[in-house]
């Protein structure tokens, strides 16, 4: 068990950082190169002002008509994404690890609060899962990979919860927690989780088209 832990927090972690960082850079660069090679007009349309206008409008809760049409889903998406980032980044245990390794420290949130945030993330994942199964228009679009992605996202939180409370086999869940977290990070640039990287660009592009060329709103 200990050897596995050493492997996961040593070489595997470095590999994860490497794949995540360079995967993300590769993703961004390939989009940029494709734009310059094949669709240079996008550069002439791109506008910082209107790109930001669109992004900010879509970040404002319930400003877009689309969000108003899906009040429950939109609320879940909001809460999910906030908790998804806050829970791992402000967990005392994570910060301690970073402190020990690189001397990086920032304030943490209380463990019980993070516990709730983790439960919220899992509840949201369950919501997504049920929605995929039951909503006709979502189910039609859903393929196996969508369920796998959902599992990739849910697993680090589920195992984190198990490990933190030391329920059942602590060592097992701890190692699985680290592994699943690493898998999630490495999957980001190469799966639809890459919306984390690309969606600001597509949103900003559509915002630019609407603002700069079409003189209309896109929310």
């Amino acid at each position, binding site marked *: 068990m200990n050897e596995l832990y050493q492997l996961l927090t040593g070489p595997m972690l470095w590999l994860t950082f490497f794949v995540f960082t360079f995967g993300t850079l590769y993703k961004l660069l390939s989009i940029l190169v494709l734009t310059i090679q094949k669709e240079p007009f996008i550069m002439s349309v791109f506008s910082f002002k209107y790109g930001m206008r*669109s992004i900010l409008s879509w970040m404002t809760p319930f400003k877009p008509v689309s969000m108003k049409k899906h009040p429950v889903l939109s609320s879940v998406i909001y809460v999910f994404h906030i908790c998804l980032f806050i829970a791992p980044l402000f967990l005392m245990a994570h910060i301690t690890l970073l402190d020990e390794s690189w001397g990086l420290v920032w304030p943490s949130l209380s463990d019980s609060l993070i516990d709730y945030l983790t439960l919220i993330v899992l509840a949201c994942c369950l919501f997504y899962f049920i929605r995929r199964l039951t*909503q006709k228009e979502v189910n039609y679009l859903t393929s196996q990979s969508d369920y796998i992605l959902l599992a990739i996202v849910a697993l680090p939180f589920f195992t984190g919860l198990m490990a933190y409370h030391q329920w059942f086999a602590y060592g097992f869940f701890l190692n699985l927690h680290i592994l699943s977290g690493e898998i999630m990070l490495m999957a980001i640039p190469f799966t*639809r989780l890459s919306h984390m990287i690309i969606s600001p660009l597509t949103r900003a592009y559509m915002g630019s088209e609407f603002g700069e060329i079409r*003189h209309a709103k*896109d929310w």
Partner: protein
Amino acid sequence: MSEQVNKIVDKGLDQGVINLTQERIEKAINQVLNKEAGARLKSYVETCVHCGMCSEACHVYLSKDKDPIYSPAGKVKRTLSEMIQKKGKVSPEFIREASIIASTECNLCKRCAMYCPFGIDVAYLLLLVRRICHLCGVTPLYIQDTAHSHSVTMNQMWVKDDEWIDTLQWQEEEAQAEIPNLRIPLEKEGADIMYSVIGPEPKFQAHLIYYMSVIMKAAGIDWTMPATPGWDNSDMAMYTGDNEIMGRVKRMHFDTAARLKVNRIIMGECGHAFRSVHDMGNRWLGYKLPPIPVIHAIEFYHELLSSGKIKIKDQYDKKVTLHDPCNVIRGRGLGELSRKVVNTLCSNFVEMTPNREHNYCCNAGGGVINTGPPFKNKRVLSNRIKAEQMAATGADVVISPCHNCHSGLEDIVHHYKLNMEVKFIGEIIYNHMEKPTA
């Protein structure tokens, strides 16, 4: 669905499929997806998380009892996704079906781009499908015929060069019965404005040119129309995926205005023609915006009315509502101007809901009405939501400043027995303005 669609006989599709080989399909798909398309295709395909939020945007989906195959992403799944997954190894029958989906179940209205949190442009993706089908030679017959017409005559309706001039002179004579010294100036070099129309106007709506000539006369505009090909601002090749012809047609239009040394082009009440000069054709030619300012009729009318060049003698008093055509409202933000114009002209205006950028599509635009009689029933049945939206206003008249919308809405009014008239803005201006006597 397939059963119903398969019953539709369309020679362009049916013969196209007979001629189609596997190699040609793969070559076409490879050409479009790997050589022509780029960052947008990659981003959209790899980013969509299949959340289904685009569904609510689509009038076809809403009208078809929310059948998921008609959602924007659903249409991509049935066409492009399959082509990508199978690396182009799809059957001729699949291409036929894809052509039907892309050409008759999506109007490229881009409403869904406003409902996707990522701003994914499904209209663009379905245009790629149309492009693939075009390269495969599987395009619905009627719209393919208009593209052929563009390529031969540079206009959409096979109008011959002499028929064009003859039609203008005929309308000039007609108008002279009302205003004896009215002219429709042809080939006037250095005029301020070149007025351009779409092919169907001289073909079967010539009175619209008459109305505009009276408006121009009353406003004292220094204008001209070309006597040569290049007069037609429409572009159906843009909607068949025949980008090469689209570019030729647009170049001819811009070149004609340049030859006449005009300051700007004013175009009639047409939506897709505006898209072709402001969004697609101009970009194909390398212009971010049209090389010569192109002003849509809505903006021009607003200019004439707000500057007092046209005065309204009595407001139109029937209860009117206003349809927002995608290409000039979502495509050019003319929603406020069109309302100012309508409020100037009409005393009893009610909004339809939703409106402006969020208005429901007419289901005729994007070349869908141009696929002709084989698809007419399907087109009308898959826009029930528009009929409900219009009926809810209780208006007697729906104003539609776009040709395609106009014809599509007339079909809807007729089928759903809405008892409404469909009117252009120009018609109302003509009937309610102060006219010069000589």
